[in-house]
């Protein structure tokens, strides 16, 4: 037994690391090698270079169009998380703590509902949205707001739990702050990590979403890749690698924000006892 008691031995840890890492890496490396393959045999960078080839642009159009839509969707979804979801979570915690359990249940529910089921319910609603707001791809953000809810909720609630929400709010109120000042000047700076994590996870979810967009006939990055794949199998593979790399960088940012910032030290302050 080592000092940590339940922790596995060094060798076991290495074996676990290699097996799990391999499971992740094999498909990625396979995809990468595939993008380097010359149909005539051998290795070539031609498929990567063709991304910038004007002659190839028409083929790639669905992907680029979808990527643009997906980025707009990511922005609108993040706005929904910050402007609608966050104030709601704060309100429930401050004013209606008795509703917290119910709210948590509802917020986590979408994770257990298959996208296809969600679409069946959303289709008639999107008929109305289409009439009221048009059929622009950005309207998908309403559906995505629901899809990202569990992730956003967990991230924000965790950082709310780390501060003394009630005392900070009441202190700010007693000092003359109105509600907008309380939220923007006191709560948001102290929830920064949670809000950052919620936003980045939302971006990752939106960029990876296929089912809802496809079934509601919207063009996003993922649907674009499927379209292009029928003519050029290599370009979607490259975009898959690029978007995975992008999401990987996002997750790295979340990780570093949560551990390395001065804010992480600030949190300990609230739980500290007498001098």
């Amino acid at each position: 037994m080592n000092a940590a008691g339940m922790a596995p031995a060094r060798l076991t840890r290495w074996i676990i690391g290699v097996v799990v890492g391999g499971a992740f890496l094999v498909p990625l490396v396979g995809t990468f090698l595939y993008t380097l393959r010359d149909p005539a045999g051998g290795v070539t960078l031609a498929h990567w270079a063709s991304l910038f080839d004007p002659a190839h642009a028409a083929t790639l159009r669905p992907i680029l169009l979808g990527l643009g839509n997906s980025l707009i969707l990511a922005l609108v979804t993040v706005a929904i998380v910050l402007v609608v979801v966050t104030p709601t979570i704060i309100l429930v915690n401050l004013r209606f703590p008795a509703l917290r359990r119910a709210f948590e249940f509802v917020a986590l529910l979408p994770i257990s509902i298959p996208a296809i089921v969600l679409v069946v319910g959303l289709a008639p609603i999107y008929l109305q949205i289409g009439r009221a707001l048009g059929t622009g791809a950005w309207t998908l953000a309403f559906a995505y707001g629901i899809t990202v809810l569990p992730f956003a909720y967990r991230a924000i609630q965790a950082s709310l739990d780390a501060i003394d929400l009630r005392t900070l709010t009441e202190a700010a109120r007693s000092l003359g702050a109105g509600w907008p000042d309380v939220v923007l000047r006191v709560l948001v700076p102290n929830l920064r990590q949670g809000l950052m994590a919620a936003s980045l996870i939302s971006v990752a979810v939106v960029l990876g979403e296929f089912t809802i967009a496809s079934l509601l006939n919207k063009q996003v990055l993922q649907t674009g890749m499927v379209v292009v794949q029928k003519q050029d199998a290599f370009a979607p593979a490259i975009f898959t690698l690029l978007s995975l790399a992008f999401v990987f960088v996002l997750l790295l940012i979340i990780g570093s924000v949560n551990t390395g910032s001065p804010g992480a030290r600030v949190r300990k302050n609230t739980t500290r006892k007498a001098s």
Partner: protein
Amino acid sequence: MTAIDDAPRGLPRTADNALLAEAGTGTRVEFRGVVKDYGPTRVLHGIDLDIRPGEFVSLLGPSGCGKTTALRVLAGLEQASGGSVLLGGQDVSGVPTNRRDIGMVFQAYSLFPHLRVVDNAAFGLRRRGVGRTAATRRAGDALDLVGLGHLADRFPHQLSGGQQQRVALARALVTEPRVLLLDEPLSALDAKVRVQLRDEIRRIQLRLGTTTVFVTHDQEEALAVSDRIAVMNAGRIEQIGTPEDLYLRPETPGVAAFVGLSSVVPATVSGGIASVLGATVPVVGEVADGEAEAFIRPENVRLGGPIAAVVQESTFLGSMRRTLVRTEQGAQLWLQHPVAERLGFDERVTVGIAPVPVVVRPRG
């Protein structure tokens, strides 16, 4: 530990300090028949309290007596179910907390973790539209007042608990509020810091003349700093008076039991005179003749006298010794005596009761 020690620094004797230069006379604070219900439970049964401008009043009582609720109603953090709260003669019952012009220090550490000490202290001024430069200067004055001007650039997590509560006090005072509300601000601190800060709060309050309401469950704290104390029990004020009043002339058995240490011993009342363990003492207030219980203060019991007793325990308190004895009738009596008199467990002694008026309650 990055924090430095909490040594008291006293008040700066300078006229340059804007806060001291503008010290006022304080605002009158009134509770009029304040009632508070949580669902079917009534936690405040009509609180009436008139606090004079510049007065330091403590709300004292056991936990759950409604003292904090009363303070929160005054702050506007809770809505009263009935009655009204007046600040300077103006009914503020419908005014939200942020427009009541109050300063408040909380039991939990309430500094904003993301702001430097000086920005914490300037927060209230900034919300009132004071420019950054002027707000920072005044915040510095307020920090000088609590002896922490040199820590202005620190963050709250770099301060000790006592220092954090001092900054919270400076932050509450910098706006020159109409009333300063203290919600058990000392209870998270260790004993020595608690006494220092308690005395410092009182010194600063006297200098600034700010009307102050102090909630505490610690009777020693309340006795030490208050002009008057309102003793609360079960949602009612049992007695309002100066610390001397409450200690020497408690009007109810509840106050007698809660304020200071008392021995509760059997007594017989007849015509305003109680017979306690063979001694006769006058009774406070009107009490029906018959069997009763008397509250005897330790300082009114002396060594040597007609009552035979056995020592149960004896505690050294520095300047004196406090001893618990058991009389032959089985009553337990606390007494105070000079340190030089060392008493051992089971030692036989005699004690006497001074003929000072005592509070009695009928024996149930």
